[in-house]
């Protein structure tokens, strides 16, 4: 519960409408996109400026109130669930694109801008903001920065961290920090910009960002290749890169995913395939043509069973249907869908997929894998029912083993979703004791009172998910 003084101060700061403690507001901000996780905050606040955020943080600090920042609450690691109660700070009102600078090719945005809307806006100006998380229709730039979101174009274009040039952020004590700028080169001290990207709301509240834009690629071509042997698909991925072609997207669907997708979308996918690759190249027309021809050659050499190249945008859309339906198709199988993002070096994807299949069999759970083959960022996705506690437990055991396998293969526990609360028990496996110690030191330097998104990233102990309500 918040004390009366704090409530009064917060109301004065943002006005009656924008600080709420009613039941409805608390329930509606007690969850994010993570299954089986719910915790009620004590209040919900909607700031409209950096100054208001600073004011709110001063009040929160003086009363030791936990603050969890929130965009659209679409993340999958429990990052926006207020485990310790306190205040959820919703950034929706700060949703303006402040500037697109055509001389420097930068955009200045507030954190509440919907990523998809920013992308359309800059594309309208002939420019390109590549990070494209699958949630971009709903997720906000602030959330993307906090989680360092990836997407389908990560292999060629990088992820959110490669496009953030500067930030305005408010620290836990309310002081305002400005990092970077419209600069390609800036080595004045530690790179605080990069440090804040992916910090999951635990270090500071991002209130403004300078983003890098690039010229929009002139053309794009799409193709698919299907394999009866998953190693053939994996070798194709490796050969493409070895031959120094970096495709704009290089996606993979494994056999369980193919079956589910075809059931759902009826697009006549051959059900005897071990894997499908969806490949796109963009850029100058002649380069695109040359690369796609070379990729087809590689697919043939690796004994692809079927190869299809789209002749126009309409055909491309059809080829992309399978990949776009993957999440939807899996989500419809069972009431609860757990979408993970174990990531391995590109050369290890076949092994990772096969190990995932074996682990699913061992625990007798349904797990299908699809994802970004080009950068090794896979999405093993379990379909289950939150109400079947015994099965859910087996799913959790299976995922622990999947993360272990990923690390063993030189990979990581999360490629783009973040640690939050779901991966906290496994973080030490990846970064080691020294890594945890350094990270905790950084956390303390930014937030000595531990009020910014407490209980995230760092686990109190290695244990299972903190499930308050099987919501």
């Amino acid at each position, binding site marked *: 519960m918040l004390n009366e003084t704090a409530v009064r101060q917060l109301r004065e700061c943002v006005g009656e409408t924008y600080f709420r403690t009613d039941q409805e507001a608390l*329930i*509606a901000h*007690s969850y994010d996109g993570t299954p089986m996780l719910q915790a009620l905050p004590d209040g919900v606040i909607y700031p409209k400026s950096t100054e208001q955020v600073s004011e709110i943080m001063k009040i929160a600090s003086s009363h030791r109130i936990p603050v969890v920042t929130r965009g659209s609450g679409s993340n999958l690691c429990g990052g926006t669930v207020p485990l310790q109660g306190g205040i959820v700070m919703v950034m929706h009102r700060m949703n303006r694109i402040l500037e697109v600078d055509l001389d420097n090719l930068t955009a200045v945005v507030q954190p509440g801008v919907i990523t998809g809307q920013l992308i359309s806006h800059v594309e309208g100006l002939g420019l390109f903001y590549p990070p494209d998380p699958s*949630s971009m229709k*709903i997720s906000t730039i602030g959330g993307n920065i906090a989680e360092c979101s990836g997407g389908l174009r990560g292999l060629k274009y990088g992820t959110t961290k490669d496009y953030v040039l500067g930030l305005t952020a408010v620290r836990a004590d309310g002081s305002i920090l400005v990092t970077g700028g419209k600069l390609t080169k800036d080595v004045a001290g530690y790179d605080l910009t990069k440090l804040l990207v992916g910090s999951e709301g635990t270090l500071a509240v991002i209130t403004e960002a300078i983003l890098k834009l690039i010229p929009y690629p002139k053309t794009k071509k799409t193709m698919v290749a299907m394999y009866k042997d998953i190693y053939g698909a994996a070798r194709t991925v490796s050969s493409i890169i070895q031959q120094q072609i970096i495709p704009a997207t290089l996606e993979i669907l494994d056999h369980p995913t193919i079956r589910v997708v075809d059931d759902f979308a009826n697009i006549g996918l051959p059900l005897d395939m071990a894997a499908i690759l969806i490949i796109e190249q963009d850029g100058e027309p002649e380069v695109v043509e040359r690369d796609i021809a070379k990729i087809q050659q590689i697919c043939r050499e690796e004994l692809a069973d079927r190869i299809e190249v789209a002749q126009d945008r309409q055909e491309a859309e059809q080829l992309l249907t399978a990949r776009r339906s993957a999440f*939807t198709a899996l989500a*419809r199988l069972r009431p609860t*869908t757990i979408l993970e993002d174990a990531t391995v070096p590109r050369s290890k994807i076949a092994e990772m997929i096969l190990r995932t299949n074996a682990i699913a069999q061992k625990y007798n759970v349904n797990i299908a894998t699809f994802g970004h083959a080009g950068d090794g960022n896979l999405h093993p996705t379990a379909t289950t029912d939150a109400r079947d506690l015994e099965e859910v437990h087996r799913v959790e055991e299976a995922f622990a083993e999947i993360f272990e396998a990923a690390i063993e293969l030189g990979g990581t526990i999360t490629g783009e979703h973040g640690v939050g609360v779901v991966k906290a028990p496994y973080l030490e496996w990846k970064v080691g004791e020294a890594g945890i110690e350094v990270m905790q030191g950084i956390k303390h330097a930014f937030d000595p009172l531990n009020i910014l998104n407490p209980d995230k990233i760092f686990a109190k102990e290695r244990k299972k998910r903190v499930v308050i309500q099987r919501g």
Partner: protein
Amino acid sequence: MDKTTGKPAVQHKNPLARTLLEKLDYDQLTNCMRCGFCLPACPTFSETGMEPASPRGRIAMMKAAVDGIMVPDQQFEDQMSLCLGCRACEPACPADVKYGQLIEQTREAIEEHASHSLPVKVVRRTVFKHLFPKRGSLKLLGGSLSLYQKSGLRRAVRSTGMMKLLPRSLSEMEAVLPEASSKGVVERLGTFYPAQGEPIAKVALFRGCIMDVMFANTNVNTVELLSAAGFDVYIPESQVCCGALHAHSGEMKDARKLAATNIDTFKQLEIDYIVSNAGGCGALLVEYDHLMQEDAAYRDPAQWFASRVVDVSTLVVEKGRIPTFAQPEAPLQDSKLKVTYQDSCHLRNVMKGASAPRVLMKQVANTEFVEMAEADRCCGSAGIYNIVQPEMAGSILEHKMEHANNTQAGFMLTSNPGCLLQMKLGIEQHSCNHDMQAMHIVDFLHERMVKSQ
């Protein structure tokens, strides 16, 4: 271990929570992944920016009430009333959550415990128990409304400013009401109208209640359009109101009673299709199987019925012979007549019939179809929503008209009477182009079909 996939074992003290637990489909509540894909599709979320006014937020509250995490209070009920029921969240949902069913179940539970104020009670009783289910009363209303409109009484009432005594939303609506009539489609055409040329199929017209009083001309035009497209059209006389307004307001018993009468009526005919020309009605008709699923006697007949329901545009495009639609060239050189379209949410999201109207509009000679931005977004009419939630409906309509004005179209076409009235109201209030005319797509096409014959 046994699978526990049932409802939670909570003992609720609160009577509404108990009823919610009993009525709500807990599987559907569990199916919501809370991914948030429904948020940008939801008009009330877009207007408010507040999570509780989104489908995800509403589902979370339903579930919290059932799980015993919140007590469903007045705010809970208000939030459920604020939903337009436009169902735009359903096509956006990866997990295929049946939100429409959840909101109906919630409203039914709320209705069971509602203590409406006396005027509201009277209005609800009049509307749901006497007016809509009984054709006689509606015709009488049509007749008296028509008398009121034609006798000079309307002019008198308007000039005395008596209208100012009504709530603004009602008086504004009154201004755009079409000429009512006590003569419905059967009185004008009889109960059978043969196909022109070789019959393709036998169809029955669902004439609706409001449609047949306020828009009887549209019903007549629908029959003639269907006949021209090659269909034998039956118009069974004992059909009644579809029950959509009842179902959306939580009056499920009445809705099921009406559905049973309609199923009995149409089942007697040997027909291939049941044609609707009002998206709002069609969407409930197409879900009669769901509405009647608890009723063993009606389960199969309801499925028979639901599987035959189709919107007039969809049937003409997919099965019919599309007639010729003539349109003289616009007076200005190379300026084609511009036509735009406001989707009926229920036709689009529930009947999946968004493409056929566009196909037909593109068939009209010398006409340019201009797609309006956010045509797929609710206009705020939503049954009686614009009367009970005038503020939200007003702000939704204002945004809608910005997009409408940008099209610079001469005609704004719709596929549902509620949307049509709302667009007329919008043109009245916000249009910089008062030459824009709102019409039902059937009337627009019929006019041009006649010109070409």
